[in-house]
């Protein structure tokens, strides 16, 4: 299952190698061919002005005047067949189940360490390990209530998991808004294709959060905790709170008294049972974590430890989505579920291992090297496209602290036709489906497709010029 390394032509989502349209795209493609380019251009302009008016933007730090930026939206959808989705969804479900089992194990019996699947130093020396969570029981044994699993296609179209996001994964609001935009711009396409709906995500999210409320709470009060209007993902926080019909709170709106968490309302204090937090662990409680945090709630951790409030995602989930832990996820599936993993990992070299380090240093021009704690496409070397100087710089950084890096082959990420200045052209994409875990596991069909808008670019992150596409899962 060694994925193909560039420069072999990547898998294209719409066309086969000999130019045939793949079945899920056939209806769409017929339509696209007949659609005049001017019309498409006009629709795209319309989408831009609508996104601005609706304020679907992300704040750019340091910019005044309400200069929030748009994440570019591409009007060509990414389409998956029902069969492709079924296989992918089964793999996601299995993977997230194993990840939750792993976190629960790490914070309880640590069977996996005793079995020697991975070394204790990899857990206990990890910045994301939270000793405060040791021995603490959480409702249903669920830690990662909302998981965003980044998936790419390579080779002949096989799915690979690139990254698990188990802390505060974002992007689901774009999944929902992209769909709304497509239905508004091209209603006729939804008459021609049977596209599985995604609009019920907020309902599922609310049900999921309510299902993990502290025991004995009949009608749990759920809130969304945001760092505030200046956070780059503020739109999403406000959007989800609104769609779920719950309060959007900041740290200053909450306080802990008598072991319970309350919010300050115009009618006095009101109990809060479940906090869907969009703030990192470090900032949650200044009494326990960073004492300079003004975003958190003093005493929150004590209420949490007493089981009086549920925090979603749980504290300490970062131990399972770290890039240094990632290589072990297939083993977790085998260890906890006794099953063979349905989704592949990208083969990963762990540079703390001398063999892997030597190989990597000898093949820097072929590999992608990632910082274990990096995110958002920062702190990463793409060997084939980097300059000699950049590679040398990275070589020194790796040698200084090999344990901070992993290396992977440069995947030929699949491409999808995308409407760019030159017309419709292939661009690399990935996919982030959102997996909800509570009493049961729910996955809304599809997810967020991100697209690297620059020709040849493999970086899909919005902070680095990536855009988004609507993701269609066709029904049988």
């Amino acid at each position: 299952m060694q994925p193909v390394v560039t420069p072999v032509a990547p898998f294209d989502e719409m066309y086969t190698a000999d130019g045939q349209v793949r079945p899920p795209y056939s209806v769409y493609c017929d339509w696209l061919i007949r659609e005049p380019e001017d019309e498409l251009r006009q629709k795209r302009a319309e989408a831009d002005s609508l996104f601005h008016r609706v304020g679907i933007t992300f704040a750019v730090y340091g910019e005044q005047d309400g200069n929030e930026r748009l994440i570019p939206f591409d009007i060509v959808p990414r389409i998956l067949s029902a069969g492709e989705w079924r296989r992918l969804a089964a793999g996601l479900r299995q993977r997230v189940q194993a990840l939750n089992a792993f976190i629960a194990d790490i914070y309880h019996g640590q069977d996996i360490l005793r079995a020697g699947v991975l070394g204790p130093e990899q857990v206990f020396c990890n910045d994301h390990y939270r000793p405060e969570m040791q021995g603490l029981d959480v409702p249903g044994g669920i830690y990662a209530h909302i998981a965003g699993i980044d998936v790419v296609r390579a080779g002949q179209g096989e799915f690979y998991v690139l990254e698990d996001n188990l802390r505060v994964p974002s992007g689901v609001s774009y999944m929902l808004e992209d769909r709304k935009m497509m239905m508004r711009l091209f209603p006729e396409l939804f008459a021609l294709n049977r596209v599985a709906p995604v609009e019920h995500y907020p309902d599922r999210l609310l049900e999921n959060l309510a299902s993990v409320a502290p025991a004995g709470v009949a009608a749990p009060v759920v809130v969304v905790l945001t760092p505030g209007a200046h956070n780059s993902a503020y739109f999403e926080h406000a959007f989800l709170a609104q769609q779920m019909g719950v309060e959007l709170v900041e740290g200053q709106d909450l306080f802990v008294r008598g072991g319970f968490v309350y919010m300050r309302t115009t009618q006095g204090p009101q109990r809060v049972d479940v906090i869907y937090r969009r703030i990192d662990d470090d900032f949650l409680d200044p009494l326990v974590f960073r004492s300079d945090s003004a975003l958190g709630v003093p005493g929150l951790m004590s209420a949490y430890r007493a089981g009086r409030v549920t925090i979603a995602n749980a504290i300490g989930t970062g131990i399972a989505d770290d890039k240094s832990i990632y290589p072990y996820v297939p083993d977790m599936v085998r260890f906890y579920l006794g099953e063979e993993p349905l989704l592949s990992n990208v083969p990963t070299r762990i540079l703390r291992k001398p063999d892997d380090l030597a190989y990597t240093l000898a093949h820097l021009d072929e590999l992608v090297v990632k910082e274990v704690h990096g995110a958002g496409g920062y702190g990463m070397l793409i060997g084939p496209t980097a300059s000699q100087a950049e590679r040398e710089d990275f070589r020194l950084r790796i040698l200084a602290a090999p344990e901070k890096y992993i290396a992977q082959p440069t995947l030929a990420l699949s491409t999808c036709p995308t409407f760019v200045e030159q017309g419709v052209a292939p661009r690399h994409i990935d996919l982030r489906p959102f997996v909800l875990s509570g009493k049961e596991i729910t996955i809304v069909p599809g997810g967020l497709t991100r697209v690297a808008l620059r020709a040849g670019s493999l970086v899909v992150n919005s902070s680095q010029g990536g855009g988004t596409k609507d993701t269609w899962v066709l029904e049988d």
Partner: protein
Amino acid sequence: MLSRTADHVYWLGRYAERAENLARTLDVQYRLSLLPRKSTSEGVGWGLTLSTLSYADEYAARFGRDFETHRVIDFLAFDRENPSSILNCLRAARENARAVRGTISSEMWETFNSTWLEARGNAPNRFSARNVAEFVEWVKYRAHLARGVVLGSMLRDEGYHFMQMGTFLERADGVARLLRIRLACEATDNDGEPVTHDYLPWTVLLRALSAYEIFRRVSRDRVTPMHVVEFAAFRPDVPRSLLRSAELVFDNLAAVANTRSGETQRRAGVLHSMLRFGTLDTFGASGAEAFLQDVSARVWDLNDRIGRDFLGHTFPT
């Protein structure tokens, strides 16, 4: 409702209304500045406008005693450094809306957002001191639109009541100041004698309050300063009258009353009954200015008390 949310919604109401009141005030003073009159030709009209709006110090610090019409209009309408320019009020309204976009309706958020985007996009080209009439019209139009959206899409919960309170406290203050500006100009023009037979400025004022036609319909009085002040203060059926505003403040406050707010409600009731049972005799010909000043002071007292009772300024923790 979260106190912080209520606070944002309250200020959303205040800033949106302030932008509109400023536009209406600007409209009056600008139209009058085009006429050959004593106070305006000497720039005194603009000076009085600035001081009645409490902007005199800030303006003087930057421009001294240069009351050139375009400069003052620019300061009041478009100045980015003047925190209360119309442009900045529209921005503040939008920022407050953004902070609670999950609580207000999407249509409301989109309306306040696009108002700000359009204002920013058109200043200083289409919207400028040279085009102030068009700008004023546009601000009023956007205010009408926002009102309709609030009326037609906002849940009638506490948020609505706090927004209404913000709106009508601001309106009472704004209208009281508009009347005071006119009285002050009048006094200057007539060497301290506010009695005048020149009805024109007061007609302009009534029009700016969208109340000229109403005045003609419901009142057989001539357009004199005292008749207009009486009309704008005490009519229960005129949308921008002080009485109407005070009544709505009182009603909306009653709808959100909590265990701390008794005294605040009483004071809102005092303001309401002052206006409800007031007549010209209440303040007499020379006391109108003092009366209007008292109304503004009571508005700001209520503002502070609402802040303490509801908006999270004094919560025991």
